[in-house]
């Protein structure tokens, strides 16, 4: 049935994704579960449309994880990573260490040899970067306390894979396995056979090379590529950059995902950041989808069917054990109750590294073939269970025990409906809310950060916890009767999603949206939002005014200059938003606008009537009446 041919396979995978994922999304299951189900559906145990080549697809699709880490790196400035060092080392280290111990102890209980138990424990201690980050990102929870902690742990695990790979051969029973030399852990790398210190040096050199290249080489390269005006060439360069980094890292024996993450962080402050993000995003999405489908297709239902009791018991036990350790750690690291739950349910699965480590362990005869096959099935099941678990947490556990996500029932209790809904109550949304409140306008607030929600509730604000882009939550917040919807979420994708939901379900709402950059402003304008506010515009103009004053300009002149600047800039943004897809037209128009504005501010255009403060400028009056007595008005 499953014939060869690239196009045939592409047809199967794409069709499965296109059919299943929207349904899953619609049902509120999230795209990850959708892809997994699609994989199960086309896999050898259901429709049988794809077969053994699923494993190759998996290896290919793992590159999606690499791309994802690169994108995450792009969002994180180096200082943020440094800020996370505590959670990464402390929380991550404890999670891997404790979980390994607990799992190994359980394995010992099953009567396994201590070496095997340790190998299994450490293998299953790692979680799935792909599933967790993708799910958290989709739900917009990555920036919350639990999301950040999850991210820190995953990052630590990525680093930990290197020593774990090196550990495997050591766990082999003495005298067994193909050449149990330490270097053999990564036999096709440059560092194979090097002594430990040299290996470390090579890795450090590679990391340094990435940082230096990111700082000094890539900027001019991107500029040159951008100047060609060929969009696809820029995409190619972006992909080349990621692949080259991944290959380099693999060659020195480091996880490619970690390497590209580093490259992403280095480029986080580059002016091409947004460009890179947009270019890589679709590849990442497709490959990750493919990755999830391959996992789904790879679940060995035949094996499960042979001993369902054992497999499901192991799956359950693994999830419970990991969950318990995570919950304890979450409390230990002072996460709030809700965030601990999120943290625990996110990371309670085994991850894609387990596939690699298990095949590795089999090669060195640390783990037997049968055990490995069972464990692989268990790993796949826990991964598939993750989106379901997170959904359970979100819909059942948190509403009952955590900060409540208020829905329909409570919404009915709101007797006086607020005219304004504010989505996102970070520093931006909070100022909007306070101004409204000071003028006697109460607003209903939606926020995704349960810590913040708790705090605001304590302050007596009407705050809903949850994903504002869900129509039911919006409805519960009174979107059907409100007049204004203020979008102040941190992520433009969420804002855009919300625009779409609001326009579809609550067309009477006037939308006011915050944009964090010009690019975001364009996207919002394109989505049909009239009231778009770039959140840096006002403060930077005010600073600019102050700078002019300190340089000796009259305050009123500086103020007027800023007013002129703002008006022209707002006009230009709206104009450019309509033509941003035409690259050359965009650039030439943008340049024209900037030049026009500069000329205007210099006063060159006084003759054209564009100089707006001419009424206070006596120059033309001097020319006409100068020197003679007149009835000139003063």
């Amino acid at each position, binding site marked *: 049935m499953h014939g060869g041919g690239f196009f045939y396979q592409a047809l199967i995978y794409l069709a499965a994704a296109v059919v299943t994922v929207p349904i899953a999304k619609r049902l509120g299951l999230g795209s990850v579960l959708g892809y997994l189900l699609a994989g199960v559906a086309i896999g050898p145990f259901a429709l049988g449309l794809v077969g053994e080549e699923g494993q190759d697809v998996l290896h290919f699709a793992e590159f999606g994880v690499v791309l994802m880490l690169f994108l995450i790196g792009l969002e994180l400035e180096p200082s943020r990573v440094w800020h996370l060092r505590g959670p990464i080392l402390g929380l991550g280290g404890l999670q891997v260490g404790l979980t390994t111990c607990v799992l190994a102890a359980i394995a010992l209980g099953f009567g396994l040899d201590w070496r095997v138990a340790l190998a299994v424990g450490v293998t299953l201690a790692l979680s799935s970067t792909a599933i967790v980050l993708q799910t958290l990102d989709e739900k917009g929870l990555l920036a919350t306390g639990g999301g950040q902690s999850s991210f820190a742990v995953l990052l630590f695990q990525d680093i930990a894979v290197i020593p774990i790979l090196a550990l495997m051969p050591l766990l082999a029973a003495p005298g067994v396995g193909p050449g149990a030399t330490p270097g053999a852990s990564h036999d096709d790398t440059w560092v194979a056979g090097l002594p430990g210190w040299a290996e470390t040096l090579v890795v450090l050199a590679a990391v340094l090379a990435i940082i230096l290249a990111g700082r000094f080489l890539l900027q001019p390269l991107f500029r040159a590529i951008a100047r060609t005006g060929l969009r696809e060439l820029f995409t190619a360069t972006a992909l080349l950059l990621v692949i080259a980094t991944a290959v380099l890292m693999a060659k020195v024996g480091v996880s490619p995902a970690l390497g590209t993450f580093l490259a992403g962080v280095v480029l986080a402050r580059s002016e091409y950041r947004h460009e890179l993000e947009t270019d890589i995003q679709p590849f990442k999405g497709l490959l990750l989808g493919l990755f999830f489908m391959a996992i789904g297709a790879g679940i060995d239902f035949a094996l499960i069917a042979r001993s369902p009791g054992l497999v499901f018991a192991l799956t359950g036990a693994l999830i419970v054990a990991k969950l318990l350790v995570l919950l304890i750690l979450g409390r230990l690291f002072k996460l709030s109750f809700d965030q601990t739950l999120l943290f625990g349910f996110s990371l309670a699965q085994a991850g894609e590294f387990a596939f690699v480590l298990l095949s590795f362990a089999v090669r060195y005869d640390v783990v037997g073939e049968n055990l490995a096959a069972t464990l692989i099935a268990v790993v796949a099941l826990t991964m598939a269970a993750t989106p379901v678990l997170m959904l359970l947490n979100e819909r059942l556990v948190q509403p009952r025990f955590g900060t409540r996500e208020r829905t329909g029932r409570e919404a009915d209790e709101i007797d006086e409906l607020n005219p304004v809904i504010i989505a996102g109550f970070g520093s931006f949304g909070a100022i909007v809310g306070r101004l409204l409140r000071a003028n006697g306008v109460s607003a209903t607030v939606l926020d995704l950060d349960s810590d913040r929600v708790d705090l605001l509730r304590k302050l007596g604000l009407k705050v809903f916890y949850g994903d504002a882009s869900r129509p039911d939550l919006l409805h519960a917040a009174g979107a059907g009767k409100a007049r204004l919807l203020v979008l102040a979420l941190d992520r433009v994708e969420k804002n855009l999603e919300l625009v779409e939901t609001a326009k579809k379900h609550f067309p009477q709402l006037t939308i006011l949206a915050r944009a964090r950059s010009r690019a975001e402003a364009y996207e919002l304008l394109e989505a049909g939002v009239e009231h778009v506010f770039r959140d840096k515009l006002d403060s930077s103009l005010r600073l600019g005014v102050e700078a002019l004053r300190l340089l000796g300009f009259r305050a009123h002149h500086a103020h*007027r200059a800023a*007013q002129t600047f703002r*008006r022209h800039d707002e006009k230009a943004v709206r104009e450019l938003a309509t033509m941003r897809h035409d690259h050359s037209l965009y650039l030439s128009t943008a340049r024209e606008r900037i030049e026009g504005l500069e000329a205007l501010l210099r006063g060159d255009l006084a003759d054209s*009537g*564009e100089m*707006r*403060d*001419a*009424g*206070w400028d006596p120059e*033309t*009056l001097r020319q*006409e009446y100068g020197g003679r007595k007149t009835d000139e*008005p003063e």
Partner: protein
Amino acid sequence: MQRILILFAHPAFETSRVHRRLAAAVEGLPGTTFRDLYEAYPDFDVDVEREQALLVEHDLIVLQHPVFWYSVPPLLKQWFDLVLQHGWAYGSEGTALAGKRVLCALSTGGRKEAYRHGGHNRFTLRELLAPIEQTFVLCGMEYLPPFVVHGAHGMKAPEIERHARAYRKLLEALSAGRLDLAAARHLPQIEAPVDDLIRPAAGGDAEGSDR
């Protein structure tokens, strides 16, 4: 038909009683553009090009505002400063407004008796607003006697309504060319009721030659 541009300036419209009614009475009159300046330029950033274009498009400019310190609200002064540019509105080449008419529609808190020689304010309102009058005369426009509502403080609703109706009638008559300009020009100011100044609809043709 005369196209009318009402430039309305009130920094605290939401607390106003008289101007709320006056504005409501004339908003939406056919051929009339109602422009709320404090709503358009809360930051005093007057768009000169736009304002000039609006002036050009209309024949009669109405400045509707309360009298503050014997003058216009500050935004309207800013508007004068920036919009009435030399070389455009006045000066040897400034003829953009020549031939148009301007009517001020004012309210004063004080009663009419206060605005006379020997009264509380020592001058008539027409005298006090001479700078405004001269501004438009310099622009080559005809300054009509202002329409005035005195004693706005503590005015009762029916009384306000009477003034609002008069204001509307006045603008309707000006728009249709039925205002007896010859009679009006002799008045220091126009007040409700205005019926005596308005000719019946049939005799409206004579007005055409007046421009």
